């Protein structure tokens, strides 16, 4: 079964797979996680604010995004961003948006909906008495949130945020539909060029597994440490 397995194809394409492919994947994962958490926190604060308009906006946004498949959203932004860019800059033609930029905006906005649910749970888990006490001390909204509520929410939710970023890491493989060269894209290009689908896809699966499994083990250990307080 594995007798005509060509391990050399992996060795040959190693630099391409990791220097081009994996660095794209990791960069996209890292930046989108950062942007997603920031946007997600803002969405969570909007949902919990006393302004109905903000609440409605955030709720609708989160519900719509969560009802749609990521693949569809990737296509949406891929075609929509050039027009949005044109509208923002007021230029004559649709703006040329790079593939990486397009993917980054998509994943940040998409994952923000999921991160916002986590952050909302984290903010709500902080006892409301703390909010009241901080206000009684004369703190303003941004002080209460910035110094009292959000730090605790982040701390409590760190394991969930990290778990979501592992999911994000796996989801980035979907940029395949835009023919980008992320790790899977690189593997699949080599696979098709050399006619080595079996080797390349098994290897890709293995790499994703090792990284995701390893990261989730680390998250578990972190969770155990946070739990003992």
């Amino acid at each position, binding site marked *: 079964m594995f007798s005509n397995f060509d391990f050399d194809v992996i060795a040959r394409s190693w630099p391409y797979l990791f220097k081009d492919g994996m660095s794209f994947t990791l960069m996209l994962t890292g930046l989108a996680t950062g942007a997603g958490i920031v946007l997600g926190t803002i969405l969570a604060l909007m949902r919990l604010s006393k302004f109905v308009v903000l609440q409605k906006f955030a709720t609708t946004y989160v519900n719509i995004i969560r*009802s749609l498949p990521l693949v569809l959203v990737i296509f949406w932004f891929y075609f929509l961003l050039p027009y949005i860019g044109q509208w923002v800059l007021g230029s004559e033609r649709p703006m040329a948006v790079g593939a990486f930029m397009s993917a980054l905006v998509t994943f940040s906005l998409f994952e923000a909906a999921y991160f916002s649910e986590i952050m909302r749970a984290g903010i709500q888990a902080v006892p409301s008495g703390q909010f009241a006490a901080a206000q009684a001390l004369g703190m303003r909204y941004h002080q209460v949130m910035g110094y009292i509520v959000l730090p605790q929410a982040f701390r409590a939710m760190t394991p969930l945020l990290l778990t979501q970023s592992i999911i994000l890491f796996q989801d980035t493989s979907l940029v395949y539909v835009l023919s980008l060269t992320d790790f899977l894209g690189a593997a699949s290009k080599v696979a098709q060029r050399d006619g080595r689908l079996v080797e390349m896809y098994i290897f890709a699966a293995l790499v994703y597994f090792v990284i995701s499994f390893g990261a989730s083990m680390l998250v578990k250990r972190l969770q155990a440490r946070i739990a003992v307080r």
Partner: protein
Amino acid sequence: MNYKWNWGILFEVSPEGKGTYLEMLLSGLMWTLTTAFFAWMIALLLGVTIGVLRTLPSRTGRFIGNAYVEFFRNIPLLVQLFLWYFVVPELVPEHVGDWLKQLPNAAFYNGVLGVGLFMSARVAEQVRTGIESLPVGQRMASTALGMTTAQTYRYVLMPMVFRIIFPPLTSELLNTIKNTSVALTIGLMELTARARSMQEFSFQVFEAFTVATLLYLFTNMIVTILMRRLEKSIAVPGYLGTSANVVVH
């Protein structure tokens, strides 16, 4: 924006020659739903089995169950689909492989299998959590009454578990529907794929994606409403906590 909207495109005949563009998208929706339905059957069947396996006293059983879940959870769905579609037919004996490659609707079968197995790991996780959320006393009491392990699960634990985990299972069902879209990469002509090919044929990209989006939202809404109704009739009195965190807030 200098994009030229043309909603009339929906009622123009598509180059596929089987009706209008709108009908093309609706047929995509049918494929999405059919694929999701069969994938969900696989996910439930295997998910419940594996979930139970992970709570059994047997160490081997627990190991197999955990390994299964970790395998399917830590590899992206897209890569899993490629494994089923491109890799498996090459690894099985040649005549089986040839038969697999020549199957009509191979993308559909692979989509069902791939999404089904991927989701089964998530269902297994819900089932395990559900079983572990029951008081240990129930298991002990069953043993004290002389029930076998099989009887304990069949008559005591599982009837409760299914009612408790119904809300999270609803969101996994919605995930199953969404995840079928990944199967467009192996050629399944489901809703997203149809929207994409409508865009390629007609260049009316935003009309195509708007209709696809609305169809997804609509499906989501119908499933949620039906499941909520069912959920109310089977909810365990006093177990309100579980239904509070249903997805689709």
